[in-house]
């Protein structure tokens, strides 16, 4: 990596007014364990940023510091220009939070719950339109406690957007969704994005990050090991195609090359026919991600989860 470049993840060429989230040297220590170990990151207004990483890597800790739920041990953080450790109610009115776990046990109906929460905000969205947007029209008069897990998750999302947030935090929003519901959810997020909402998404689903994210960052062991556009993550090298085949004696071979067709042609010429077990692979985002995590020597800090 070019050491003269600005700190990875920061956006040097735009003014503060255009930055929704600014993180510098963020640390969170639990005793001697650093759950977050020096993160620098900027997220531009209107951007959708996907935060990836294995369990216990520090994703949720980072996001909860940004949401104001946890206090940091060090570094500087600005969320919509405000330090979340001292976020006022007016600041909270400008953000929307969809927490990781849905624990809604309420006796209120979907409509009652949304109408009630809408009353906390200065400029809320229309309740019925939000219910329609999350596809719960048929359940509007059903108590939240009687909904299925996926339906409750939709209520969580609805509560996150009811206040018309400038910045929306989505912590593993589609866990428990069936494939169709996920695609509908993606459409909803795209329309929020089209409205100009800044979105910080944490997810385990790399296809989700690829579908929604303008940029993504990978956190491993409390450090941001890579940041970039989804199609640039891991660098150009990680995207070099892989050619696999078996030699005449059965030995498996594997070579990375920018010119796979040329290699295959030479193999055909050498074998005088079809090479055995031939595969040409372009690494998927998942392959690249796994490679990144592996290279970073990912040790899942389960003890961080235990402390949390």
């Amino acid at each position, binding site marked *: 990596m070019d050491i003269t470049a600005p700190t990875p993840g920061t956006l040097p060429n735009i003014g503060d007014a255009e930055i929704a989230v600014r993180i510098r040297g963020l640390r969170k220590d639990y005793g001697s364990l650093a759950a977050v170990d020096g993160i620098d990151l900027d997220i531009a207004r209107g951007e959708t940023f996907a935060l990836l990483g294995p369990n216990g890597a520090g994703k949720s800790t980072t996001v909860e510091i940004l949401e104001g739920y946890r206090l940091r041990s060090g570094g500087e953080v600005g969320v919509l220009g405000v330090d979340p450790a001292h976020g006022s109610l007016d600041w909270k009115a400008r953000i929307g939070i969809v927490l990781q776990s849905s624990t809604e046990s309420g006796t209120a109906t979907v409509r009652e719950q949304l109408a009630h929460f809408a009353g906390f905000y200065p400029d809320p969205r229309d309740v019925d339109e*939000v219910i329609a947007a999350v596809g719960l029209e048929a359940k509007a008069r059903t108590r939240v406690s009687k909904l299925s897990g996926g339906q409750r998750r939709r209520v969580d999302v609805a509560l996150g957007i009811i206040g018309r947030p400038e910045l929306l935090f989505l912590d593993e929003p589609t866990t428990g969704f069936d494939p169709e519901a996920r695609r509908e959810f993606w459409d909803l997020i795209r329309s929020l994005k089209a409205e100009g909402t800044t979105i910080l998404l944490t997810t385990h689903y790399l296809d989700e990050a690829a579908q929604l994210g303008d940029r993504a960052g990978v956190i491993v062991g409390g450090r941001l090991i890579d940041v970039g556009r989804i199609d640039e993550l891991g660098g150009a090298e990680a995207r070099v195609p892989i050619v696999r085949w078996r030699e005449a004696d059965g030995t498996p071979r594997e070579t990375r090359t920018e010119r796979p067709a040329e290699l295959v042609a030479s193999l055909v010429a050498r074998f005088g026919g079809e090479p055995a077990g031939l595969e040409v692979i372009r690494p998927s985002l998942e392959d690249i991600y796994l490679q990144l995590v592996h290279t970073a020597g990912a040790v899942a800090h389960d003890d961080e989860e235990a402390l949390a």
Partner: protein
Amino acid sequence: MSTIDTITGNAPAAAPRRARADRARPGRLRVGLSRIGYETRSYFRSPDAVFFTFLFPVIMLGIFTAAFSSAGDIQVGPGTEGISVGAYYLPGMLAAGMLLSGVQNLAVDIAGEKSDGTLKRLGGTPLSPVSYFIGKIGQVFVTGVLQAALLLLVAATLLGIALPTTPEAWLTFAWVFVLGITTSALLGIALSAVPRSGKSATAVVIPIVLVLQFISGVYLQFSQLPEWMQNIASIFPLKWMAQGMRAVFLPDDFKVLEQHGEWDLGMVAIVLIAWLVVGLVISRLTFRWIRRDA
């Protein structure tokens, strides 16, 4: 799910609506009042809460009246006018209702909200803790008034208990009730900080509430308790709520059965106000949406 374009009508790209600056956030009081409605509705949709904190005193009053109906009237001394057992226990049940609606209900309710993530969610919204407390205390007040009304209605109609007729008695009832229910609500909020989880909340709260009811003259005739027990009970607010209610509902000559042979309404006010302040201070110091540096 349709897209949110239906929400804004058109929504041109990258034009975040920033009308927010011109619009004021709804005030704490207004949101607090809306929370009272929300909390009261939730309360009546929770069968556990309704049975164990709302209906319980009514049921106990019915049981006491039926069980001791053959025991004859309670008299201050030979030759004096007696009252029925039901009439004697009515003030205690009114006091128990205040305690259950406030302390038991809120301590269990808030501990549950803390552990099921409700408070964490609310803490991420622009809801002020002040509005949250207005909602909780308001709910206790609304359901406490309904509970007292139900108790008095059942007492007067089904159980044939004569209710006071003088305005002075009802005035005393009003201030003892308002002070008692407010103190109970604040102590409930304060006590909700003790249970480590929602599941353990009933195990922590109910024994405290139950013991208080036994030593404070709710289930057992206070005048027949040993003096040391009366002295312990005098530290806590329930004894004074019950005594204040006895001053309202029992004939005046029953005051000789009280600890000092007087209704001591001054002490009722002082002790309840002291506990109100204690509840307020503890609530203010211990209440958190979440434990932030966990």
